[in-house]
């Protein structure tokens, strides 16, 4: 199938679904729910096709908006908005579409007793649209627009239940600080535009490599700070711990599984590896004694934040009594692993260690999206059935909700990293490469895992303990809530059975494509120059 032809539908379908939602919902409740499910399922189909195309051909799709070629008539640089999808983007697209479909399916049962649902489904589709846009875009300002679309939708969804003080407070905090972080990113884009006069990522990479100025460094600092906030890294992780428990559980699954990944990790990887291409700076310019940006220092910077995040996030998870808050802190800890992989991939750029670390980071991004989505969905089921998420009152759920507890067991085992499940392989790649790169980092990663295990053991003890009367009337939920959980469990088990095959066939090529040893990302854009 032709990848270029199908790519715009990735945006068109959710956009169409979101715009048509107010009209469709005039036809009633059933029509609205069916519409949301159909739209997300179609998006998943398109996303799978895009992923398959990119993975099969190993070529970067370059799609120009508004014309055949991004280059204007008679000018030698791209002037139009460009979408560029490499393998990392394609993987993120597939993950986003899959987890979003699960969240929409789950919402059918979970949000049944809420009002204002046409706005809810519109917002959820817009959230998905924003994330898909971030994953496929190749233009800096387009990236900012999609980032803000995603952020605004998630602010609104965190505060969706506005009759509770919790949602409002978390929404206020998330929104105000998040807007400042967004402003930092916009400021970085403005500085880059003022210095280099272009917004296309591939072409900015060329310009920065030709002339790395102080402005480029300041812009990079602003990008990194803003995106660290969006991904919930440690000194700025507090919004995450407040916002995820306050949101409805289906939204927590999307926030924790997707938003912090796509809006934070993916965007950071894209900016670090595609715009400030370390191949040019760390190897080529260094060899020719030209001025360059020291990318390995930036890698170490990210490693410092990653270590902090690892320790603080996982440790705070141990002492929480609120189940969803525990999961939220655990998300912070897992982001630490991903950042560690990313940082090592940058600091040890050009070696096999860096490549394995980067592959592990990408792998863990996908795995954690699936696992944490499952865990939040389980937490939602518990809230739905028992009505509390205080761990002190939830003992003995295993007797009354066996299927739910089984799903939680699988998710917890996977996130701790037990071998037959998918979390093991990705964590192992990160441990191994960090131990090879610097043993201290390996030790920090192991300490983080120890805290993580402690946190999940507490929850599992609670679930398998002696039943309290609070949980006596609880039972497994209806099919529309059970089905997404089962599908996610299935995904975890299947991905766990084929760990190294996935790693070798998908993740290592992805890391290689992202590292762009032969400037693939830039060449895919600049090779179109003659066609105008």
């Amino acid at each position, binding site marked *: 199938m032709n990848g270029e032809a199908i790519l715009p539908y990735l945006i068109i379908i959710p956009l169409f679904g979101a715009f048509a939602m107010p009209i469709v919902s005039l036809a009633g409740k059933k029509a609205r729910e069916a519409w949301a499910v159909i739209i997300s399922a179609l998006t998943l189909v398109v996303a799978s096709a895009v992923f398959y195309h990119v993975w099969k051909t190993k070529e970067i799709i370059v799609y120009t908006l508004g014309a055949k070629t991004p280059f204007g008539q008679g000018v030698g640089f791209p002037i139009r908005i460009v979408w560029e999808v490499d393998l990392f983007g394609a993987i993120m697209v597939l993950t986003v579409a899959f987890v979003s479909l699960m969240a929409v399916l789950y919402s059918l049962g979970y949000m049944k007793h809420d009002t204002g649902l046409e706005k809810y489904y519109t917002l959820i589709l817009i959230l998905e649209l924003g994330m898909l846009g971030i994953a496929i875009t190749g233009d800096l300002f387009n990236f900012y627009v999609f980032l803000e679309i995603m952020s605004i939708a998630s602010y609104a969804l965190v505060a969706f239940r506005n009759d509770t003080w919790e949602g409002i407070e978390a929404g*206020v*905090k998330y929104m*105000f*600080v998040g807007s*400042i*972080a967004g402003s*930092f990113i916009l400021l970085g884009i403005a500085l880059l535009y003022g210095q280099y006069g272009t917004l296309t990522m591939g072409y900015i990479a060329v310009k920065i490599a030709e002339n790395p100025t*102080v402005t480029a*460094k*300041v812009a*990079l*600092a*602003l990008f*990194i*700070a803003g995106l*660290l*906030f969006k991904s919930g890294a440690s*000194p*700025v992780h*507090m*919004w995450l*711990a*407040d916002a995820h428990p306050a949101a409805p559980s289906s939204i927590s699954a999307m926030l924790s599984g997707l938003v912090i990944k796509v809006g934070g990790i993916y965007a950071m990887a894209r900016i670090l590896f595609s715009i400030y291409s370390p191949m040019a700076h760390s190897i080529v310019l260094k060899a020719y004694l030209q001025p360059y*940006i*020291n990318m390995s*220092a*930036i890698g170490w*910077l990210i490693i410092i934040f990653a270590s902090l995040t690892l320790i*603080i996030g996982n*440790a*705070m998870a*141990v*002492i929480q*009594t609120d189940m969803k808050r525990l999961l939220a802190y655990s998300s912070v800890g897992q982001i630490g692993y991903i950042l560690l992989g990313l940082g090592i991939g940058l600091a040890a750029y050009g070696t*096999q*260690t860096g490549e*394995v670390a980067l592959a592990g980071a990408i792998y863990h991004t996908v795995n954690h999206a699936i696992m944490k989505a499952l865990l939040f969905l389980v937490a939602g089921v518990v809230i739905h059935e028992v009505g509390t998420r205080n*761990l*002190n*009152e*939830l*003992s*003995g759920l295993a007797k009354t909700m066996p299927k739910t507890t089984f799903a939680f067991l699988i998710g917890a085992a996977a996130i701790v990293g037990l*071998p*037959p499940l998918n979390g093991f392989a990705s964590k*192992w790649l990160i441990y*191994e*490469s960090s131990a*090879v790169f610097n043993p201290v980092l390996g030790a920090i990663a192991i300490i983080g895992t120890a805290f993580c295990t*402690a946190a999940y*053991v*507490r929850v599992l*003890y*609670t679930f*398998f*303990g*002696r*039943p*309290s009367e609070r949980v006596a009337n609880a039972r497994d939920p209806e099919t529309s809530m059970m089905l997404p959980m089962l599908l996610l469990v299935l995904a975890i088990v299947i991905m766990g059975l084929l760990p*190294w095959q996935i790693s070798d066939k998908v993740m290592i090529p992805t890391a290689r494509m992202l590292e762009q040893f032969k400037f693939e990302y830039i060449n895919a854009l600049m090779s179109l120059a003659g066609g105008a």
Partner: protein
Amino acid sequence: MFGYWDALYFVFIFIIGLILAWLLNEWAKKSGMGTRETGDGTKIFISGEDPDKVVPGFEHLEGHFTGKNVMWGLTYALKRFFRVLRDDHTGLLTDYVSYLLITTGFVLGVILIWG
């Protein structure tokens, strides 16, 4: 360098761990004083929580393994560390903003000096 970890090693280590745990359990039973398999002395005792002990004000929780105390040892040993982390999360919007600014300043400093 990156020979992938074989799943078989995990099984071996798991078995060794099981044996170690069993040995530890046997040793503890022999050297412990108040534990019996049956009869009056039988109690399940997990990490400091005594199921028969009723905490005043928490009578409704009597006899539940709440998970509250499962990691009691860890939490107690690191309680100063945890208190620092807890106090750090003040919940004030202003503090969140200042953390964001501190992060930005740190990143900017590092990149301008070493970058």
